[in-house]
Every structure is written in structure tokens, then in C-alpha cells.
């Protein structure tokens, strides 16, 4: 398959970033995350351009299952348990987030131009896609007040890093790759548990209540 398909998928990921920045309802945010996870899962197979190995299939399946299904399911469970549907008063408004995200995407493309790429990666948008996703993740992490939105931000940030990892999937040993996937999944899983516990302690899942500890 050509670079066109890959770039289409990356474009999709970047579009989903913007949708995530603009959505105020948590269920639609989680749906966006899930769609992004599935898109990322397909990526290694498309990048392989025909010579698909078992390792790649495993990475793809693991990603679709982890980022696309399991984590969104956990997040939905947390939303139901806490009865939170909406991000009411974000620190950074939805329109401003979108503008920031759009600006970040443009900056990502510009920044990626400064970094040299090997010939086989030259026509692919992996680097700008990765930087844009990391920036989107940061905007959500900083700009949202609900714990679940922040977890989603963290996930988008991790997705950006995963996207970058695609550049190295051929060269680095598989052990590192699988270990990384496992860690990402477990990490978010633990965060999910924490969200669950926090909700019991604070009832509202609002991180603005987490201000007892200060100088």
C-alpha cells in the first residue's frame, strides 16, 4: 500500500484529536478515543506494505483490543459509576482548545520539517501526527477539570508516542515494543482504578476538589 493510505489514517488521527478537543460530553470523548485507538491499531499493518509478520499482527491486535476496546470500556464504566456526563467548566474553553489544537497541528507540521527523516519515511506524516497528538494530550491534561477527561488527554498523549514508535517498529527488537504496549495498558488500567477510588472519596470526580494539599 502506498504512503497515501498511511497519511490518510494519520490525518484521521489528527482529525479525531480536534474532535476530542471540541467535545464537551464525556461519552462522545470516549468514543473519539476508541476510534483513534482502532485507527492506530491498523497502522502497523498498513505500514508493513505487504510483508506482514506475526509480531506486527500481534502489535496490531493488542492495540485494537487495548486502546480501542478495553480502555474505552473501563472509562465508560468509570463515567457510569460516577454519574458524570459532561465537562462543565473547563479551565480552557472548548473553542479556545480547538484553536490551540489547530495552532498546535500547524506548529507540529512546521516543527517536523526541522527533523531529518530516512528516505523510507520521507513522505509519511508520522512525525507531525505524533507531535500534534502529544500537544492535544497536553491541552486536555491541562485544560480539563474532570478526571476522566484528563485520563483521555493522557491517552491521546500516549497515542502520539505510539505513532512515533511506528518509525522504529522494524529496527527495535520486539521485546521492547511489546513491553511498552503492556506498560501503556497497565498504566491506564491503574489510572482507571484510581479514578474509581477518587470518585468514592470525592463523589464528583472533579479534580478541582483536589486542592487540600498546598502550601
Amino acid at each position: 500500500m502506498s504512503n497515501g493510505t498511511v497519511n490518510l489514517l494519520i490525518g484521521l488521527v489528527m482529525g479525531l484529536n480536534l474532535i476530542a478537543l471540541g467535545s464537551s460530553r464525556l461519552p462522545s470523548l470516549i468514543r473519539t478515543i476508541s476510534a483513534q485507538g482502532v485507527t492506530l491499531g491498523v497502522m502497523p499493518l498498513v505500514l508493513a506494505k505487504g510483508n506482514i509478520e506475526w509480531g506486527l499482527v500481534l502489535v496490531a491486535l493488542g492495540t485494537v483490543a487495548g486502546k480501542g476496546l478495553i480502555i474505552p470500556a473501563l472509562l465508560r464504566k468509570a463515567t457510569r459509576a460516577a454519574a458524570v456526563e459532561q465537562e462543565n467548566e473547563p479551565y480552557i474553553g472548548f473553542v479556545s482548545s480547538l484553536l490551540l489544537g489547530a495552532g498546535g497541528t500547524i506548529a507540529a507540521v512546521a516543527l517536523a520539517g526541522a527533523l531529518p527523516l530516512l528516505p523510507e519515511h520521507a513522505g509519511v506524516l508520522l512525525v507531525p501526527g505524533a507531535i500534534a497528538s502529544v500537544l492535544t494530550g497536553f491541552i486536555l491534561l491541562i485544560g480539563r477539570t474532570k478526571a476522566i477527561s484528563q485520563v483521555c488527554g493522557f491517552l491521546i498523549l500516549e497515542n502520539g508516542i505510539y505513532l512515533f514508535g511506528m518509525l522504529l517498529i522494524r529496527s527495535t527488537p520486539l521485546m521492547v515494543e511489546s513491553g511498552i504496549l503492556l506498560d501503556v495498558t497497565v498504566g491506564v488500567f491503574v489510572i482507571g482504578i484510581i479514578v474509581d477510588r477518587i470518585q468514592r472519596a470525592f463523589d464528583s470526580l472533579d479534580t478541582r476538589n483536589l486542592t487540600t494539599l498546598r502550601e
Partner: protein
Amino acid sequence: MRSLLLIILPLIGAAIAAMWPSNRTRPWLLPATALAHTALTMWLFFRPPAVAGNAWVGFDALARAVLPTVSLLFLGCAAYAVPYLRIREERQNRVFVTMLLAILGLLSAGHQARQLGVLWIATEGVTLATVPLLHFNGTPRAFEATWKYLLVGGTGIALSLLGSFCLGYASLYGGGRGDLTFVALAAQGVNLSRPWVLAAWVLLLVGYGTKMGLAPMHTWKPDTYGEAPGIVGALLAGGVTTVAFTALLRVRSVLGAAGEGAMADRTMVAIGLFSMLVAATFLLGSRNFKRMLAYSSVEQMGILILGAALGGAGVAAALFHVWSNALTKGSLFLSAGNLRRAAGSALVEEARGMCVLAPRSTGLFVTGMFAITALPPFAPFFSVLRVVRAALTEGHHAAVAMLLGCMLFAFFGMTRVVLRVAEGRPKAAARENARRFVESAGVIWPPLTMLGVSLWLGLFTPAVLLNAWTAAAAQLFPGR
């Protein structure tokens, strides 16, 4: 093989702890495993094995220079954990003991990691294993601290992965074949792609710097150290931060080989001094003696990273400071835990007159405070002196002035808090609370021993240790 045993042994201990049926006897697994680990570390220290150049994990010169102190710190904490968990018998300690042992295994892996991916996995593992320890107390405040730890620490660790990828791509672009051992990366030298190396350094410094708790990425530290049990604080401040520091040292060696050493040193000097400045500022206003220890830890990390930027002598001095910091801080955290339990609060207003209510712990806490603020004859004084000497040799006069100024203000801030805790008339609530707290030998000996070792290290720094630190510096930065 023996070096792998250092990792496997605690993990086996953790597995046994997870299956051990009795809540009462389970904590004894901690000192048992820790003793075996320390014995093995000492054996390796005096009979270091040959490490293959391309090995992913190995007891190399850098591991030899720091792992023994982590092992000793863990031994002290493990000895303290037995009486501590007996006091807290009402709580299930299965997860607590299991995770502590897992952390020892992962710390051993992190210190011995000679490959970018292994290093990251070990650090990420430690981060995750710490989470259940932080909310051991189960209070809403502990939840808050855990949430912040995960969010900030998780972001930091994610960025360090991105940085590792960048370094990997720098190697790939420079003709590398995907061998991400630090030796292979350094061997590529100037062939590493310059823009990618710079991007990697920024991300890795921010990422592992977050784990170290360098300002401005230190925000998780006061909350976490303030709410975590004393043992966990000691291990975080002396063990986990050390892994992040050795990680940065290993990355810095690659930067040096790539010809970007001077740039890396400048950023490290800047971030180190900024950490010290932030720590000194907050120490002056601190009202909580456990949070005070966190800011003091930010200060120590600043000294470490500053030392690491000062060439071979500076790196050796910083490795000395790793020892001084781990042992002195360990003692401080454990005695602070005693005081916190005796007073029922870590706030200065609530915990006055502790030299009446808990005289031995107060004595330890005050002495430890003088030690960590680099008063002679404790180890921190001598290690900081070496850092200062290295800085003067390298011509960093302004940095030395700033370092000493920050240390002076930190000293003012800490003495103010500590002496207010020690002196004065105890409040009625604290008096009531202290009646239930017994200063048993079990909670005094571990911090006392650590402080004793710190004193011994200062007075009679053994030549074998000095050689180990110099050898590690030479391994990382040949020819400096």
C-alpha cells in the same frame, strides 16, 4: 548471572509475599529478602563480574557505584517496616509488602540497565508499583496525592519514552541497526543525527527529570512525600530518584560521545540551580515537616544534576552525594514518620514540643536535618564540598555562589521548621496521641544506623568507594 539474581531474587520474594497467608508474619519477608539482596550486592561490589559490552543488563561500574547504597537503604526501610506494619496491623499488608519487594527488583534492574528500552521499562515498572504504596493509608488526602503522582509522573514517564524513541531514531538515521545499548549508541558518536539527539535530550531531561523531581517538574513531590508512609518516602527520595539520575547520566554519556556534551552540561547547570532556588524559596515558607523533606529532596536533586554537569570529578562527587543523600534522607524520613505518628499531624503548629513526647526520634530528626543541610562531619558536607571544588575547577564561580546561597536559605528554612517542632509546649491533642505511640527499638535503630553510616561515610570515606565512584565517572565520560 549474579547480576540478574539481584533482580530475580526480590521478584521471587514479591511472589512469595503475594501468596503468604498470614498478615502478621508476612512483613518478615522484607528484611529476609533485603538481607539476601544486600549480601549479594556486597559480593558483587567486591568481586565485580565482567560485563559484556553489548549486555542489556549488567553490574557495570555505574551500577557498582550506586546500587549498594540503594540496597542498604532498602535494608534499613525493611527493618523499619516490621514494627511499622505491626502498629498498622488493622490494615492488609499483602499489596504493600509485595510492591515494596517488586520495587527493589525493579530498582536493581533500572540501575543495571544498559539499554534504553530496559531502562524505561524498569522506571515505568517502579512508577506503577509505587501507586498502591501511596494510598496505603486510604485517606482522601492520600488519594489526592496518588492522583497527582500518577498524572505528573505518568506524563513524565511518557515523555521519557518519546525521548528514548527520538534517540533510537537518531541512531537509525545515523546508520545504526537498532542496537539501543548505551555502549552502541555512544560508539556511533557524531554519526548520531544532531537534531534528533537534541530533541531526545530535551524530552529525556524533562521525562527523567520529572521522576527525579527537578524543578519545575517537582510538583508531585511535596504532596506525595507529605502523604506517603515514611518508608515509601525514604525509598522514593533515595532509590527511585536515583534510578532517574543514573538514567540521565547514561544518556549524558551518549550526548558526550555525540559531541553535544557542552550543551547538555549547560542545561543541567541551569535546571540544577533552578531546582535549588525553588527548593530554597519553598523551604523558607514550609509549615509541614514532611513536605519540608520533599523540598529538601528537590534541593538534593539540584545538587546531583549540577555535579553531573561538572566533568569527571563532578560526576564522582555527585555519585558520592547519591550515597549521602540516600542514607541521610532515609534516616530523616523514618524519624519524621515516627514524629508524625506521635504527634498525629505533620503540621508545625500541631506538632510542637516533640522533644518531650518523642525524645529519641526528635534527636534523630534534628541531627539528620543538620546532616542534610551539609554540616560537618556528616557525609553530605563532604560530597557537597567535592561538588563545589569540581565547580570551581571548571570555572563556574557564579554557580557556586548561587549553590551556597540557596543552601544557606534552605538551612534557615529547615532549622526554623525543625526547631519549632522540637521545642515548645506540646498541644493537648498531640500529648493525647503520643500516649499511644511507643518509641520501640524497632523504629529507632534503622534510622539511627543509617545516620551512623552517613557519619562514617563522611569521616572515613573508604578508598574502595572513592575508586568505585571515579571508575563509574570514567566509564561514562572517558577522557574527562
